[in-house]
């Protein structure tokens, strides 16, 4: 009983902080999403408008376009990060010359602020003077212009995200892979299983919890990407990279459309929860059922 009370006392500071910086802002945003409020309107009052903001979302072509490109971005970025991260994790489990240096360099992007990442990529991809378009032009005669080509801009934002966040996936998967017991692998080899069978039937199921946790983290991050993209493309060309985070930023800050922006935020939160739940149901729940 006493240790239970001590536990709550020790937890109290964290719970208080979480309440003020997590719970209160969430309910404030939720409350705002049912109101119309633009402080730069002729009448800057906060007016209750029921579900009008959510109803407007359904017919807002800007929001729907933003949702579409965001889902595509999340799919390509997170899937690529998982594949590349897994391959790098496997590589780092083996010894090769310069491994320590390569691992350090590979981890560096993780410690960079997103705005810095956006700036670096902007300098590298500015049409005609950035190093990447310059090299692509010299080597392949390819004209990379993220200011005019929607495909180029989208691809560069995906590559930038992969560059920035793959190290997180790699580190997580290294931790998961080194903690696996050797017995099942030895047994499988004795039974004549090939590498692909070992991967699908032993490695993958055993690292699934770590993999899923990584996917959850990356999914949540990718769905709310703002800084890097805002710095790199500003959401352009046109609305090619106006991902939901950028869309919300532009609605809430420059346009000061607080009520509508809050409604979009709530929908994004809902989407994130649903996506994570679907992944959980698809990957983990069947295994638990079998067990």
């Amino acid at each position, binding site marked *: 009983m006493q240790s239970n009370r001590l536990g709550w006392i020790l937890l109290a500071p964290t719970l208080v902080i979480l309440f003020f910086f997590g719970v209160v802002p969430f309910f404030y945003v939720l409350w705002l999403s049912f109101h119309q409020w633009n402080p730069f309107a002729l009448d800057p009052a906060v007016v209750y408008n029921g579900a009008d903001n959510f109803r407007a979302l359904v017919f807002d072509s800007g929001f729907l376009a933003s949702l579409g490109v965001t889902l595509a971005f999340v799919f390509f970025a997170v899937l690529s990060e998982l594949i590349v991260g897994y391959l790098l994790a496997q590589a780092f489990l083996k010894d090769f010359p310069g491994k320590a240096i390569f691992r350090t360099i590979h981890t560096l992007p993780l410690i960079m602020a997103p705005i810095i990442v956006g700036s670096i990529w902007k300098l590298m991809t500015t049409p005609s003077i950035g190093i990447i378009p310059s090299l692509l032009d010299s080597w392949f005669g390819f004209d990379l212009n993220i*200011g*005019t080509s929607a495909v180029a801009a989208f691809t560069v934002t995906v590559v930038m995200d992969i560059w920035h966040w793959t190290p997180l996936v790699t580190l997580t998967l290294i931790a998961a892979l080194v903690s696996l017991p050797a017995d099942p692998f030895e047994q499988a080899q004795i039974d004549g299983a090939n590498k692909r069978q070992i991967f699908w039937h032993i490695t993958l199921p055993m690292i699934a919890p770590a993999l899923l946790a990584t996917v959850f983290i990356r999914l949540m991050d990718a769905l709310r990407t703002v800084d890097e993209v805002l710095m790199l493309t500003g959401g352009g060309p*046109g609305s090619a990279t106006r991902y939901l985070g950028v869309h919300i930023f532009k609605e809430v800050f*420059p346009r000061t459309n607080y009520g509508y922006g809050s409604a979009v935020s709530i929908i994004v939160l809902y989407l994130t929860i649903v996506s994570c739940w679907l992944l959980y149901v698809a990957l983990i729940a069947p295994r638990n059922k079998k067990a």
Partner: protein
Amino acid sequence: MKFAYKLSVSAIALAMMTGASFAQDIQIKNPEWWQEAGKKFDGATLRGVTESTPASNYVADVLAPKFEELTGIDVQIETTSWDQMYDKAIKDMEAKTGIYDMVYIEQDIVYAYLARNFLVNLTKALDENAELKAPEYSEDNFTTFAENFRGSDGGLYGVPMEAFIKVYLYRTDLFNDPKIQAEFKEKTGKDLKPAKTHAEYTEIAKFFTEYGKANGMDLWGTTAQAHTGHPASWYEYFESVAPTYGVYNWGIDANNNYAATVENGGTMNSPEAKEALKWWLSMRDIAPPESVQSTWTEVATTFAAGRAAQGLVYGENAAWIATDEEKSRVVGEVGVALPPLEPGVLEEAESGKGYIGYYDGGAFGLPVTSKSQDAALLFMQFMALPEIQEDWAAAGSRITLTSTYDTPKVKEVDKELGGYYSMLRDDGKLFKGAPEYPFHRQVIEATSPTFYEILTGSIGPDEGLDMMAQKAEEELKNLGYRK
């Protein structure tokens, strides 16, 4: 060689992003008064937020340390991007957190801030606190640009700290080169000189883009502030290009129920507006490739890197482009002229009915939420002292006091700049700041997605402007301005 050149261009861009540093030694006329006035605030810290521009960097790097040396009041100036500056300032004033004691107010946002009662009436505050009024400070010293920062009560709500016009810059080394002049004459039958009309400008731009290509040079005929995801492109079109075709105040008629569409009496989608947009897009197509990612900063960098023969460039950058050898490849080779115009526009500007380009600038305002208003009042007056203006003008191409025009350094730089300051003084009246609307960012954000689609070619200019005018009216209706 080409690669090294590109690297150096990137280095110029990087230098621009990191800001400038200045090391002038300023002599204050009446230091005793400042020391005495600062005594009761000794140890206080003032915080300001502003856009990272040459003029603002001078405040952070030179004026703030000098003020602290005099008064003992520490001044921390945060110089950040334009978007972040607004984001931080508005959030602070809206939430009444009182983090900032000074905020940069660009001329186009002051009407919104006044409508929201964000700012302190400086005239009144100094009248009520006579002991804080510096002997050398006077509102009469300001140029007429200060009038932009007066409220309906006549009080001043911001101390002007930068003011400049968006001018037509051209490369004198290219325009005065006899070989190029002869080639231009041969091709066009005309003398090569700064354009007065859009047709002349187009001819020169096309000539230099072809000339650059034919001679293997990284040279194009014009700049274009045509970012496909940043409002800088929106601004260039509506504030610098459309007025030269006679489309004023973004095509919105405030006296006619804020109409934007031609159908309702606005001009945002008028034939003149459409012609202006098509002309600007045609210029964008022969500008350096980076133009589609360029805001005002990158346009200046492009010009400084010697990649454009002519272009519309914000005057705040004119001085460093023309004089700073560390950042610019075209030092001493810059001329200025009035923007190219359609027939009749100059006459309309002279008669006060219209204007020929953008007169931009900003002031430092004192938020009502500041917790150190008295100390901030001191710093604001310090920024308006005549004796600190000369070096500041030379470093940041900005003039806010009438006396600054006659200082030796400004006269000297004026020569190097091909008469930019003289133009600011003599022809400044032909330019105009942004329209007096309290809904700038709202209308821009409502219409800019369509504008960016026009830039990418997904929507045609005619159809796009029709959609934008419609969107603008919808937004103004939502905001309650349009009935």
